[in-house]
């Protein structure tokens, strides 16, 4: 019986795929923005923020969150500070951190 339940919970069932696809489609429908436009928006946000802050562009996350039909755009932008060292290989934008 436990084994059966484990099978039922399988992650890549078509039921699970349907739920994931719907979640994404509904978010973009409701916000009236295509997934491609969201990428463009993300790049523009990065460009603007980079003018003022030294940010880790590879780790920027710009996405929607949904809570009971209330949608918000959440941008998670890690920045480099005096205390966090920018990796050597990273392409520096703005002033390099002084050590």
């Amino acid at each position, binding site marked *: 019986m436990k084994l059966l339940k484990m099978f039922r919970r399988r992650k890549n069932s078509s*039921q699970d795929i349907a*739920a994931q696809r719907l979640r994404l489609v*509904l978010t973009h*429908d*409701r916000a009236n923005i295509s997934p491609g436009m969201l990428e463009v928006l993300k790049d523009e946000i990065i460009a603007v923020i980079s003018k003022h802050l030294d940010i880790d562009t590879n780790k920027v996350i710009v996405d929607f969150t949904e809570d009971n*039909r209330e949608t918000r755009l959440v941008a998670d932008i890690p920045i480099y500070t005096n205390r966090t060292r920018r990796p050597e290989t990273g392409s520096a934008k703005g002033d390099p951190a002084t050590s």
Partner: protein
Amino acid sequence: MSGKVITISSGKGGVGKTTATANLGLSLAMLGNRVTCIDADIGLRNLDVMLGLENRIVYDIVNFIEGRCRFRQALVRDKRFPELYMMAAAQTRDKNSITVEDMTRVAREAAEISDYVLIDSPAGIEHGFRYAVAPSDLVLIVTNPEVTAVRDADRVIGLLEAEELAPAQLILNRFKPELVRRNEMLDADTVVDLLAIDLIGIVPEDSKIFSASNQGRPVALDEHSQAGKAFRNIGRRLTGEDVPFEALQKQTFIQRLFGSR
């Protein structure tokens, strides 16, 4: 006191709007209510056939709007129940034959003589949908557990909310518990969660639906039909009765329903 106007809508076609309208009309009539079902799908009428009343139509809704008949003359009485009436859509006209004001006037007249007025909305989100929902106190959104149908339902719910037209509740139709058990169909919990509206009923897929429409005898009249029972329960919930949901779902969902009510 005038009756409650309920529009049955969906966005997507073919999900069971007309079936739901016919069955809920009968279910409410079985409970002793005065019911008027209005087919708002001008040009593609089908509620008459679903109810088995197609041979008794004399006038239709457009005839009434254009002043060619009195309101009562445009109603067909369902002989199975003394107080169940249907108003047919015009078959040879299009949606532009009706304005929002026309439909509001029709619904108001119907509400004068009914406890419940059910409006069968056309598919889509254009003019036909707009006039169908304009006079309603409540919109029942019919959807199926499929990505396409749920997506379209979300559009309709969004429009209703954005324009503050009427509160909406969900009917999940053509539900197959066996497929859900095998993780091959969206479960009710997920659909309700995604759409974020109240669920008023889950109607299981039922092969009896076909012979019902073949004969013009909706499944609500069939004591042994699972779908019929589900529709009768929705009818009771519409009258304010607290009816537990049928045991079609995973345990967690049932528990959630009982927990929240």
